Structures are given as structure tokens and as C-alpha cells.
């Protein structure tokens, strides 16, 4: 299974500010009544974007000038709460290719990486600089460089960080571990063979 080597993500960005944006907010549970992930993008941030009757609330994703953005900016502890992969799936299906936040909840981070959607961290001040630039000019091109670990935008550049195992997986095209896990079959059998409960 050849996977793309994701060394950078280039696109326009949109800022969805706030800390502790949880997975219930990213994709409310009622939209998880499905047996495929198709169509989840439509319901991204549903309850903060839409009234019950479907009319739009004030939200960055509802602003026409940010249509087509592929990089999501946010605050601290992004993706906290449930382990639902429906959350990164909804973000990806909506059209985002990467998320920049102050930090991420653990399970969300892992789920996103496995989908090949890089999650990188930057300081609050630096995220604010990127947000200011894209708010001033939504057409600004933002480049997340996973090799140099920096984000370039509007003639500026800021440092980013990413857990090394995730960065390695993305830039080397092994972000979905399934192939490697399958290859370990003999070692798995040997490890399982040493544990009494595995034969129970």
C-alpha cells in the first residue's frame, strides 16, 4: 500500500477560535448514526453553525470568503472528548487537509494522523499571527512545512511542532500503519504465545 509522502500542506486557512473544542461540537452524536463516514463533512460543527431550522448562525465556516479553506486554525486541547474518528473524518470530508492548534487531545491527534491529516502545534501568538493574516486576506496562501517545521504565510514564517513519530509517518508515507502491522504477524503470534490469556 503506497501512501503519499505528506511533507507539506498548502492552502487557504480559516480560524475557528476557542479552547477545548470537543468532539461532540465537531460532530454531534446524532450524526454518527451511520455505517460509513461518507457525508459527514456536511455536519461539521453542525450545531454551532446552524440553527435547528437549518438557517446559518454566525460562524467562520459560514463566511463565503473562507470557502475552500483547507487549513483549520484553533486553540488549545482541540478534539477533546470522545474517541470518535467521525470527528477528524468530518473535518477531512469537509475539505480540510491539516489542523494547526495550540495542542490536541491525544486520541483525536492519533486518529487524524492515521487519516493522513497532519495536526501541528504552534504558540498562541503565532496562531494569532496566521489568523490575522488570513482574516485580512482570506486568499493568503498558507504553507505548513513538515520538513522544516514551520508555517509560511503572507511573507512571514512561524515555528511549529509535531510529535516525531507522527511527523516521520507523514513525511515518509507510512501514516496508516495497517500494512506494517500486518507484516508483523509472526512476531504477533510469538508475543501472544507468551500470554496465557491469549489462548483462553
Amino acid at each position: 500500500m503506497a501512501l503519499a509522502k505528506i511533507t507539506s500542506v498548502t492552502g487557504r486557512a480559516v480560524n475557528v477560535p476557542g479552547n477545548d473544542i470537543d468532539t461532540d461540537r465537531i460532530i454531534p452524536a446524532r450524526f454518527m448514526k451511520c455505517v460509513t463516514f461518507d457525508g459527514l463533512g456536511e455536519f461539521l460543527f453542525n450545531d454551532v453553525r446552524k440553527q435547528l431550522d437549518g438557517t446559518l448562525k454566525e460562524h467562520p465556516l459560514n463566511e463565503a470568503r473562507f470557502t475552500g479553506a483547507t487549513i483549520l486554525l484553533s486553540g488549545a486541547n482541540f478534539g477533546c472528548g470522545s474517541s470518535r474518528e467521525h470527528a477528524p473524518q468530518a473535518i477531512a470530508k469537509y475539505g480540510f487537509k491539516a489542523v494547526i492548534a495550540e495542542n490536541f487531545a491525544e486520541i483525536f491527534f492519533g486518529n487524524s494522523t492515521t487519516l493522513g491529516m497532519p495536526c501541528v502545534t504552534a504558540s498562541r501568538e503565532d496562531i494569532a499571527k496566521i489568523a490575522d493574516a488570513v482574516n485580512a486576506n482570506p486568499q493568503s496562501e498558507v504553507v505548513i512545512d513538515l520538513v522544516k517545521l514551520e508555517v509560511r504565510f503572507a511573507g512571514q514564517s512561524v515555528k511549529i511542532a509535531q510529535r516525531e513519530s507522527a511527523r516521520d509517518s507523514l513525511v515518509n508515507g507510512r501514516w496508516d500503519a495497517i500494512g506494517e502491522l500486518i507484516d508483523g504477524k509472526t512476531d504477533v503470534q510469538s508475543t501472544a504465545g507468551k500470554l496465557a490469556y491469549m489462548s483462553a
Partner: protein
Amino acid sequence: MAKSLFQKVWDSHSVRKLANGQTQLLIGTHLIHEVTSPQAFGMLRDLGLKVAYPHRTFATVDHIVPTDQFVEPYADPLAQAMMDELRKNCADNNVTFFDRASGKQGVVHIVGPEQGITQPGTTIACGDSHTSTHGAFGAIAFGIGTSQVRDVLATQTMALGALKVRRIEVSGKLPPGVYAKDVILHIIRQLGVNGGTGFAYEYAGSTIDGFSMEERMTVCNMSIEGGARVGYVNPDETTFAYLKGRPYSPTGAAWDAAVANWKSYASDAGAVYDDVVKLDAASIAPTVTWGINPAQGISILENIPSPETATSADDKAGIIEALEYMKLPAGAPIKGTKIDVAFLGSCTNGRLSDFQEVAKFVKGRKVAPGVKAIAVPGSQIVALQCEKLGIDKILADAGFEWRAAGCSMCLAMNPDKLVGDQLCASSSNRNFKGRQGSTTGRTVLMSPVMVAAAAVTGYIADAREVFSVANN
């Protein structure tokens, strides 16, 4: 070298190092349910694979089951489709399915321990963040996403980086009317909603040692609400006594061997931790949340925070956002806040001892007029145990609706939902915006006995006063 339980389990389940530096970790027990598994089975089919270790994979249905409808097809066709999908996937792959017809169905984190599937020194994964519950037995239990469910189905392993370990010692005697739920709400409040990111929490100390398995499960269950993916308690005689005689527990000579093995997994006396936190049980009071994440909690005696008392700009923004959503007055006592709904149940507090404790206090009392109160056993077995003891009758006489086993109003993927901006006194684990099924619904987390006190008074109340619990 002295090791923690986490390190020992990690070492014995490590298969090999992967190219990116992560570990391929053997997952001994895989628990699946209807919400996060169908896509994983779909991916498995796309890969042309079957479940690698079907005898180590166990399924039940919990999130979507209606608690007031027993006969299929369910009124909600989407729920029925998920049910059908799980049933078919289990049959196609020879996976044991604790279906409703088995009499063993329930919330996955209640079923595993109840069946004796959850055992010390093992690794467990489930596509649900409250999988940390199983850590109560000295297992290392991970909540995972659907792609990882696929990985475990296909290989019985997943790729992971090791976690740091923080030992949280709670010592001393809890005051009367203070429960395991208060302990974990207090811990999360102290360490923050993301204070546990990158850590496994080892809960220890005389308070935790003295807890029953059900109390330990309540504590471990909410580890993720403090950002910790894993939480555990070292196995001891309480653990072994709970497991003895369960359907999946070893028997005869195998039991003795298992107990000896389980004991060997407990953290060594000299184990080194990445962090140690010490808390005094005597200082913990009945705790309730006032905001929109589980760390936004206060004792029942405190006032709702106001933006002026914020400790940082972030804290201030958080308070403003939470109070606006919760429609609560800044600086006022939380006690006396009117409630609309009382919910007893969930993987946090849906076990026999939770209902027993509530029944003890609500016997002969009535739910306040205008309050909708529901009691939802965590499993069919819990329901049966309660019914044998007459607990269902006591609760029903008091005005609670006694329902069938499921996740119910904890996350509202089933018909049990808040309506409009109803405020719910809830024994569940999350108070996120919209969590209980209404986009403006409000959740106040608390212990089951505090839910009972709110139910009978109609207000958030101090259960110790309502039920005349002696405060020494």
C-alpha cells in the same frame, strides 16, 4: 529495575518497534459496539481480511438501543441498520455478540468486567474513549478510533507511543455522602481538562485501595475527561474476589496461576513515576459541574465562578462562554439551581451499587413535580440484580422511569434526549454543549446520590442535607 504496572503490561505486550519509532502493541482483548465498528469492518472487507483473533473479540450493543423499546425493528431505521450491521459482522467473523437475546447485553464497559473478560495485566482496546474504565482491574485499556478498530480486528495489534505515568494518590477516609464520582470530578478539576494529555493515570492511595471494584471503575472511567487516555488501579484481593467465578474467569488450577500472574503485574514499590500527585480524601466534598467541560466543577458548597475571579485570560473566556451556555448566574450558589431532568445511569454510574445507594435514600420519597427522572441500568444483568432486590420498584414508586440497559441519555444517540434548554442532573461523564441531545441542553455532572437529591427536591441540592447523612 522496579517498574509500574503500565511499564510491565507495555513490555509484555510489545511486539516490535515500528519504523516511525512507535511500538506495535498486542491488544489482548478487543471490545466492539455498533457505533465505531461498522466502518472498520467495511475497511476489513476492502482489505480482504477477516478478524485475526475472533476469540479475543467481544461485541455488544449500547449507544443506539432504545431503553423503552424491546422489539426490533427499532422505530429509528438508522439505529436498526447499525444493529443489523453489527449482528452480521459478528456472525461473519465468529465474534461473540452479547445481544439483547443473550441476557448479557449492556454498556460495553459494564459488560466486559461483568463477564470476567476484563482481567489484570492485559491490554484492552475499544472504539470508545471510556475504555479507560477497564483499568480498574489493572488492565491497560485504550479508547481508539475506527481506523485503529480496523487495525485491531485485522492484526490484534495497534501502533502506539508509550505514555508517561502519573501516580495520583488519594489518601484517607471520604466524608459521609462523598463518593468515587466526587473523587474523580475533584481530580479532574485539580489537574485540568487536558492535564492528563500524554499520561496514563495510576490511581492509588488508601482511599482507592479501600474502594470496591465498582467505585474503581467510576474513577478510571473518567480518566479521559482529564485528558488521560489510560487510567488504572493496581490489582489486589478486591480485584481477584470480584473476578472469581465470572463466566470468562479462569477456573481450578488455571485460576491460581492467573492470580499469581496478575499479582506480578502490580506496580513495584520502588517504581519511578513521571509525576506524583497527592490528594486528601477528607478535603473532598460532593462535587458538581457548572460549565461545559468536566473540569469546570465546584463543591456543592461553593459559588458558581464569575469572570472577575478568573485566574487568566483563558480562564475568563472559558467562564464567560460556559455561563452564557449554562444560563447560570455568576457568583451565585450552585445549590438551589432548578433542574428539569434527572438521569441515573451510564458507564460511569450505571452499576448495581449505584442504584443500591440511591434506593437506600429515595425509598419512600417522591420525585419533585415537573422533574422527569429516568434510571437506566448499565446492563441487562445489572437490571436483573436490581429487580431481584426490588430496587426497580423503589425507584419506580419514587417516580423514576425504570428503563432497559443502554447508554441512554449520556450521549443521546437513542430516543432519550433533553429538550430545549432543559437542565439535567446527570450521573454521566460529559457536560459538553449539546451532549445530551438538545443543542441548548444543559448538563450538570454529579454522583448518583446527588442526582437523587436533585430529583426529589427539584433543585441541585446537597444530598447530605436532603437525606440527613451524618457529617460526623
